[in-house]
């Protein structure tokens, strides 16, 4: 297993005047080559800060980060051509340029040869379903098209690792599935994918899930380890308080009976999923 990303005791504090916010606290993390990592957590939990530290946009106050063997603190420029980054805002594209021109510009500043840019642009636009709109200005694109173009931009120089911050946000269910399928495809081809996301459905079964809370990793494991099949969530009102129980399907009737005996009303049975698991961890 080749260690692609290593964080050792990484902390980051943001200071504004006399106030300070501890964004990340003593993060230890190792990501190996070819992993598909999804980082989840509430707003302000430190997800984007972690991603910015990994790509060198931010420097840690404490700790060491090594990406592809390069210490990020001093070697972020050397790392630039080896990683691809999708930033959360679609304003990171030039809206007054066409899709093709955006990619042409990006390839140019990443030092790609002209014919290589042309070849790769065509290849990616075709793969992402944007080929017929390649000469349209980005200002006329839908959110989904912009997200796909941002992805194409990040993949143009064939990075070894793709970092994507909220690439699925604001997408309709079909486009979400499409973008995830594309990410999985590149991951199968050997690219390491690190994705920050609030969208937690349809994720690849082999993905590793990291959950951040108040700047710390509170959950870390492969998605297929979290067992949702055969598990149900029971919600009910106990007096004026809403309660929640997780139970195996086989013991469902027994749990419901116990709840009713305790005086529970409005009993609802729901299928368990990653969202409710995250909610329980963050509660």
């Amino acid at each position: 297993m080749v260690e692609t990303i290593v964080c050792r005791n990484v902390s980051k504090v943001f200071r504004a005047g006399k106030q300070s916010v501890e964004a990340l606290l003593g993060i230890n993390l190792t990501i190996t080559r070819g992993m598909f990592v999804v980082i989840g957590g509430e707003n302000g939990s430190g997800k984007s800060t972690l991603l910015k530290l990994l790509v060198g946009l931010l420097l840690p106050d404490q700790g060491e980060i090594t990406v592809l063997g390069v210490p990020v603190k001093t070697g972020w420029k050397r790392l630039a051509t080896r990683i691809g980054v999708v930033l959360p805002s679609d304003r990171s594209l030039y809206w007054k340029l066409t899709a093709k021109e955006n990619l042409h510009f990006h390839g140019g500043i990443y030092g790609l040869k002209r014919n290589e840019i042309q070849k790769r642009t065509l290849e990616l636009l075709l793969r992402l379903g944007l080929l017929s709109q390649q000469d349209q200005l980005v200002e006329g694109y839908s959110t989904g098209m912009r997200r796909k173009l941002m992805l194409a931009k990040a993949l143009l120089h064939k990075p070894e690792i793709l970092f994507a911050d909220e690439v699925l946000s604001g997408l309709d269910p079909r486009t979400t599935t499409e973008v995830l399928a594309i990410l999985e495809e590149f991951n199968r081809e050997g690219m390491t994918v690190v994705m920050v996301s609030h969208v937690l459905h349809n994720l690849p079964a082999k993905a590793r899930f990291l959950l951040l809370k108040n700047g710390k990793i509170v959950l870390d494991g492969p998605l297929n380890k979290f067992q949702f099949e055969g598990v149900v969530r029971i919600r009910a009102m106990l007096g004026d308080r809403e309660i929640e129980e997780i139970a195996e399907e086989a013991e469902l009737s027994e749990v419901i009976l116990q709840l009713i005996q305790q005086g529970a009303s409005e009993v609802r049975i729901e299928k368990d999923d990653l969202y409710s698991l995250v909610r329980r961890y963050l509660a």
Partner: protein
Amino acid sequence: MSKILYIAWKEGKIQSRYRFVWFNRSLTPFFMLAPYVLIARSLSSSLESWVLVGSLIWYWLNQYFFGVGDAFSEEREEGTMANIALSPLSLLGFLVGKGLWLMVDCLYITAITIVFFALLGVSQGAWWLMLLLYLLCGVFMFAFSIFFAGLVLIFRRLASINFIIQQGLGLLSGQTAKIEAYPRSIQLIAYTIPLTYAIRASRALVDGNLYLVSSSFVGLISTTMLYLLIGLVAIYWAEKRLRIEGSWEVW
């Protein structure tokens, strides 16, 4: 080098989307400068050309202070600054790319303005020689604007007083006057500004005084180098601070 050229290419592509801007650019300098030049003409014919070349050089500084000095603010407002920071291109390389595009832009503006004033009969020396000198002085105005860009990266609010800074520099450097007419203390300040030497060199070329042209260039080179050096240190320091604070998209 090609990475830098792509910045200039991008600027050109975006500008080509705003066709009326080109029309505006071709006329604005003439209408801005004509009142000064025509008043000078009523006083003496040599003064009109002095005012014109002084104002044109100032206009190059004006374009560079807006284009290069505000380059970071512009990208921040667009939301594309973090992309530049993530790319293998240095911030200085990015500014050089912007500067290359501005050179094309300024040459276009200057050439048209020269034609307009020639039609009005304003004497301004051999046009090709003057254009060459403007281009050369433009390189120094670009280097001077890197100093301003570095300051803007550190003190974001400076961008909002960009125009007043340019006006102040124009006034101090003798854009429409001889600085010898200024009080001694103001003259001392004037000699610390590269624009002063660029204006003096251009006027000396119109007058055919090649000795003054070369001595002015000595002053231009030395003052510009000093500002450039401070600018480069400022950019380096500001970039490090941006990576600590994470304020790439704050303006």
